[in-house]
């Protein structure tokens, strides 16, 4: 589904990713771990299509298609979703209005009419329940004044609504207490499926106890320096990132 080959990319003239290779198949959950500044967030931002980032070398294929020239919204239409580490506040747009707009814009490019209001409402209710979000929350301005947990729940709620093929979850565990972490992880787990791939980007092993990955990759200085199964995450937790840094 996602096939990254020798990816070099960065922004403002600085190359941050120094040759990433990653292959993600439908149904798989990959975890990408790494110390601060290793390039984790850059990788997610580049795959999502931020226009400030430039690819200097290598390719990103999604379902076999090179997506380098697609804008972020076009990538979203193909089925790529990015859950932000720091979701942006949008005062004046309610959670409901925002997701309605997003859903209908995605339908529009597929030549579909707007989703009928009752269907939309039903879907919103169903997915909100999945993330234990109550209805009052839905009429608040998007992310404005939300707690860390509310922001991340809202990200996964949007993922549930948009039903992407590939979801990249960037530091979804940061700023979460134990209860929020459980709710968010539960939500993500319910969204796992044989046609959907998930890439979990995290600093800590903690999240991976709840969202158990099929593969774990360790990123260091813009390169994947180690890959393995979920045991690698535990080993990393025990030995710390210095273990990787020394090895590299």
């Amino acid at each position, binding site marked *: 589904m996602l096939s990254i080959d020798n990816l070099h990319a960065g922004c403002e003239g600085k190359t941050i990713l120094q040759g990433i290779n990653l292959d993600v198949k439908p149904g798989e959950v990959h975890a990408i771990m790494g110390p601060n500044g290793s390039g984790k967030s850059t990788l997610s931002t580049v795959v999502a299509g931020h226009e400030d980032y430039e690819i200097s070398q290598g390719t990103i294929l999604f379902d076999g298609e090179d997506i380098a020239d697609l804008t972020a*919204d076009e990538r979203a*239409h193909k089925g790529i*979703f990015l859950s932000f580490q720091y979701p942006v506040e949008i005062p*004046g747009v309610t959670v409901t209005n925002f997701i309605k*707009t997003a859903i209908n814009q995605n339908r529009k490019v597929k030549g579909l009419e707007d989703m009928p209001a009752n269907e939309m409402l039903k879907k919103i209710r169903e997915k909100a329940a999945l993330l234990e979000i109550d209805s009052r929350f839905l009429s608040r301005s998007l992310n404005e004044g939300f707690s860390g947990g509310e922001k991340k729940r809202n990200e996964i709620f949007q993922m549930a609504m948009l039903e992407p093929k590939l979801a990249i979850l960037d530091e979804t565990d940061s700023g979460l207490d134990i209860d929020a972490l459980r709710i968010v992880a539960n939500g993500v787990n319910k969204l796992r499926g044989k046609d959907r791939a998930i890439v979990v980007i995290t600093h800590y092993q903690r999240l991976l106890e709840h969202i158990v990955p099929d593969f774990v990759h360790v990123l260091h200085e813009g390169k994947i320096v180690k890959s393995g199964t979920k045991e690698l995450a535990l080993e990393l937790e025990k030995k710390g990132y210095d273990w990787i840094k020394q090895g590299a």
Partner: protein
Amino acid sequence: MDLKETLLSSYLAFDAQYGPQHKLQDQRAAAIEVFEQQGFPTKKEEDWKYTPLRNLIKTNYTVFPKEEVSLKLDEVKEYILQDVDTYKIVFVDGIYNAYLSETTHVGVDVCLLSAALTKPKYAATIKKYFNQIAAKDASLTALNTAFTKEGAYIHVPEGKLVEKPVQIIHFTTDKNPSLLLQPRNLIVVEKNAEIQIVERHQSLTTNESFTNVVTEIFNEQNAQLDYYKIQNDQTTASLIDSTYISQRKHSHAKVHTFSFGGKLTRNNLNFYHKDPEINSTMKGITLIEGSQFVDHHTLVHHAQPNSESHQDYKGIFAEKSTGVFNGKIIVEKKAQKTNAFQQNNNILMDDKASINTKPQLEIFADDVKCSHGCTIGQLDEDALFYMQTRGIPTKEARGLLTYAFANNVLQSVKIDSVKKRINKLIAEKLGVNIGFDV
């Protein structure tokens, strides 16, 4: 002949026709003298520093319409609120159009100023209120006073809650080339009375037109006024709107100004507090493009204690458009416990767009709460990217963010029909389909 001279000589003709037998002759004569001395404001005057009238007054305007024009409803339907039952006072090229109007004298007077000025039964009200709050020394207001002939007259008697909003609509057609219109409105809301008013000036031609309108509003004790100005005119139509509101104890006056188009639009919105415990609200959305120009000059004169004023103006300027916001708040020494709030936020969509924004606070009391803030910025790039990752294309994302930016001004709009219309206009201006519940 320049416009000033044209107007001065037109005044002689006007006075000869309407003057001698008229009660207002003295006031008119005094007013034309003020205009004669001051002429049109220039950029040398502080209040007009950023508002050039030079081009506006170059046109050779017609001061008196020569032709009475009839319009079919279908031609102007889109400019009249249809989905709500309203009273309507409609003028075409400055002349009252009975066919498009719906006036009343049942429970409330919604009629013509020309009638109120001439019929004896209105004489007492005219004497008490007419030209009592309008600035005597402001040249454009004086010019309007000198030519006072027609406009809307609304008198809401004590305790009357007028359920139907009143629409005051002025159309300009191409039958009278380059019209200069000077409507004069007088609105009196008596004790415990309540009314909603929507005002619109709409040119139906691409000829140059210039409207210099003056509105006097008297909000008596505990009166509630809700006033909406919809300004979405042709790029050849200019408007100078001077509105003067006098308020008495416990009254609340709210004015929303939606400025979405026109060549040059200047709003002088003035609130005068005559008693303690008064509430004044003024809100606005300006959304313009091309080389359009919109100027909001507000004044709240807090003269008595325990009163409040709230100002919230949002401006969105695309292409080469220009905005001005000048918010003057005077708090007299006596006006302790005043709470005055002023906010002006602007987004410049393009490099050549500009806004001059200035709070002007003159506070002589020591126990007051006054806050003001103005911001000028661009759309949040992070928010645009965030929205894109959800599949919302840049154009729609920009539209949505801009809409959201202006949105809270719409929250206080009480007439649903107005809210829907403004919402639709914003969506059209931004070129997006906002399928929002408002």
